[in-house]
């Protein structure tokens, strides 16, 4: 088991002092250490937003792409180098708003990724507009009269869409979160972890408000029971059940059949196709060769 310090780098952190994002960062490091993954075995993929800056703040490979596009980029990376452990870390706006379609279809593809959503219920980097998870009625720096539409239900959507690992975590509980993350990273296929992450700058509630509402899933929660999992996923009016909501047997992961054909390892290491084989195909365009 490694130590979380091995992932420390010297990049200046741009988050607000005291932001629960630091808790997520700590939990990520802790879980990687626990799993004894060396930095070069890990690739962190993100979009744009406050959350999406996370990959810069630890030692690992980093792909910090465009707002909303972490998922397809991560899928490409996953196919091209299946040896990497890939974590997507981005915001609720990024993954559920701009990138919603990619997540929806990622559930279908089931690539071996851990998707960590920093769910602060706000667009923080752009200074406080509603995110897809902002509850109806809450005021923001754009929805001055209160949000007038219902929040997205991406955990429940994941469950009905065939995602086999769906969890909710809390940024304020580094140990608890890192335990969930260890399971998520170990899970074969796409694992979705929505992390309640109060924004202390733009959020409508102080951290305390959340702390009181974070409750562990009931002891007897059966993570293989779809309806109960959905109920726990939807049930966020004034309480946030935390833990692994849903976990079933892994489904085939993305690109498995291609991989059995071409073999393991990075695509860049595969030999180039035999020149003669292509030339033969070009020759086959000649009509009626004798």
């Amino acid at each position, binding site marked *: 088991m490694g130590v979380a310090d091995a992932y420390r780098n010297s990049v200046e952190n741009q988050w607000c002092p005291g932001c629960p994002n630091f808790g997520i960062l700590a939990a990520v490091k802790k879980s990687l250490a626990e799993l004894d993954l060396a930095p*070069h075995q890990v690739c962190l993929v993100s979009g744009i937003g406050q959350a999406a800056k996370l990959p810069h703040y630890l*030692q690992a490979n980093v792909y910090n792409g465009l707002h909303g596009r972490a998922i397809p980029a991560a899928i*490409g990376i996953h196919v091209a180098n299946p040896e990497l452990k890939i974590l997507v870390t981005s915001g609720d706006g990024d993954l559920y708003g701009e990138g919603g*379609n990619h997540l929806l279809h990622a559930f279908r593809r089931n690539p071996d990724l851990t998707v960590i959503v920093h769910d602060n219920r706000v667009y923080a980097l752009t200074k406080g507009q509603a995110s897809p998870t902002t509850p109806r009625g809450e005021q923001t720096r754009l929805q001055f009269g209160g949000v007038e539409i219902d929040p997205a239900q991406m955990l429940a959507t994941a469950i009905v869409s065939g995602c086999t690992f769906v969890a909710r975590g809390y940024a304020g509980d580094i140990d608890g979160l890192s335990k969930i993350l260890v399971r998520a990273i170990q899970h074969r296929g796409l694992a979705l972890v929505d992390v309640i992450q109060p924004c202390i700058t733009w959020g409508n509630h102080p951290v305390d408000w959340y702390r009181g509402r974070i409750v562990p899933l009931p002891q007897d929660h059966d993570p293989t029971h779809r309806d109960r999992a959905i109920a726990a996923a939807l049930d966020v009016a004034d309480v946030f059940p935390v833990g692994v909501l849903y976990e079933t047997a892994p489904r085939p992961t993305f690109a498995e059949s291609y991989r059995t054909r071409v073999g393991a390892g*990075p*695509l*860049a290491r595969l030999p180039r*196709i035999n020149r003669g084989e292509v030339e033969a195909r070009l020759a086959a365009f000649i009509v009626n060769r004798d």
Partner: protein
Amino acid sequence: MQDRSVLVAGAAGEGVQTIGDVIARSFLSHGYPVFATQDYESRIRGGHSSYRLRIGDEPRNAPRADADVLLALNAEAREHYQGLLNPNGLLLSPDSVDASAAADGASVAVAFSNLALEHGGSKLYTNSAAAGALCAALGLPFPVLQAILAETFSKRGAEVAESNVRAAKAGFDAARATLGARRPAELPARVNRYAFTTAHETMPLAAAAAGCRFMAAYPMSPSTGIITAFARHPELGVFAEQAEDEIAAIHMALGASAAGARAMTATSGGGFALMVEAMSLAGMTETPLVVVLAQRPGPATGLPSRTAQEDLLYAIHAGHGEAPRAVLAPSDPQDAIEKTVRAFDLADRFQIPVVLLTDQFLADSSFSMDALSLPSEIPAPHLADPEAIESVYRRYALTEDGVSPRLFFGQSRHLVCVDSDEHDEGGHITEDLDWMRSAMVEKRLEKGRRLRNEMAAPSRNRTEDAELVLIGWGSTKGAIDEVVDLARATGHKVGALHFTEVWPLPELAFPEGPQYWVVEGNATGQFARLLRAECGLETEGRIGRYDGLPLDAATIVKELPWA
């Protein structure tokens, strides 16, 4: 044989393409080159569609709009297309037509489907009966067609093959009988052999040869054939994924590229629009990528199954901010091989996105080529050696030529940081405006300057003594070269400059003397504007086509100053 244009017309789903293909293969196997274009509507059944063959002694890979022979599978097709029939042309159709409709030409009625039923045993063989009739009308010996039919239908069993052949023979005989004295002399066999294919069929092969391992795309005419080829031939080893949308497609490809795989995507203008943000990303993150942009007429959905050259300036400028890219516009299936290999090489060496700008005409037209070959040398990927990197690896290290040594994720213990923000050499977000921002802008621009020095000059066709130089780009080469020949034949000193590397344009001189005219498949003269902006060239004339059909020599000639 003299240059002949044969048009097979019918409704979508009626077998126009099958007939055309069988006839094309028959001529090719008899030693004659064929150029074939397709014209169809954006629907699955009904409407009008045609397959046009141009057959001659020498390859003339350029479209002809007129027809010497029209095979119309039904009355609507006849009505729709018979205006294209030349004065002495021949009309073949299942129903007889009054004399006036076929003007000076001949009209031959052959009841294809009845013959098929009678001789093949089913109306299913109507198309073979029609092919047989066409064969007779063109002077092709029946055994040639017979062999091709046998080959074509062999997969479906001997009986099906034989029935087709019988139906074809019936059509052949019936047409010969009806033609009587007008039937052409039998065409002698030749030993010539040609490769017969489209640019979109050679490009996937070239991509695989260039080391492409990853392709993601979303279906869109006329680009869909590219991903389909990879999927159909898993032996090529290219992972091919249909994405949920074009945005996902290009981001998947960029992710794969950052993880070391040579990667590509393909789309048309509407899908490319959705990739524009990622084109800018590729510029910023310096991630190699090849994008096929197969043009069709716009704006918006436009004419999905037709051709155009309307996306040139768009391909060049689509993306916010400033970063180098290359745009290559191949002219035929062989050139498409070379440009595809080159696209991967340029993308990799300069760490930039490269657009391969094709169009529906290139996608769907089969050229007869003397040979198809891979470039003698296929450059290896330009990845850095992790061993050679001391201490900390910096993905965006500032170098003299602007190109930083590239490692991929997981290649070694070196960590790779790829970032879409303005970044420092290590790839981390920077707000250093005093120096780092400008240094990174200049780094990227320097790559563009060096790229520019490598771009190919246009090919020249008889420009030495030309008084009028036609300038073209991309898929119009065959038509323009034909114009040069036609004009020269009537005493006009015409030459041509043809561009297949359209961005960035290299340093070019346009000697004074000749008039310069730009010929292109759009209404606003995009390449003419580009030449003016980049080279200060004032062109005297512009010929544009924008009705959805490919430029052909006759259309161009009509616009020339002496016409």
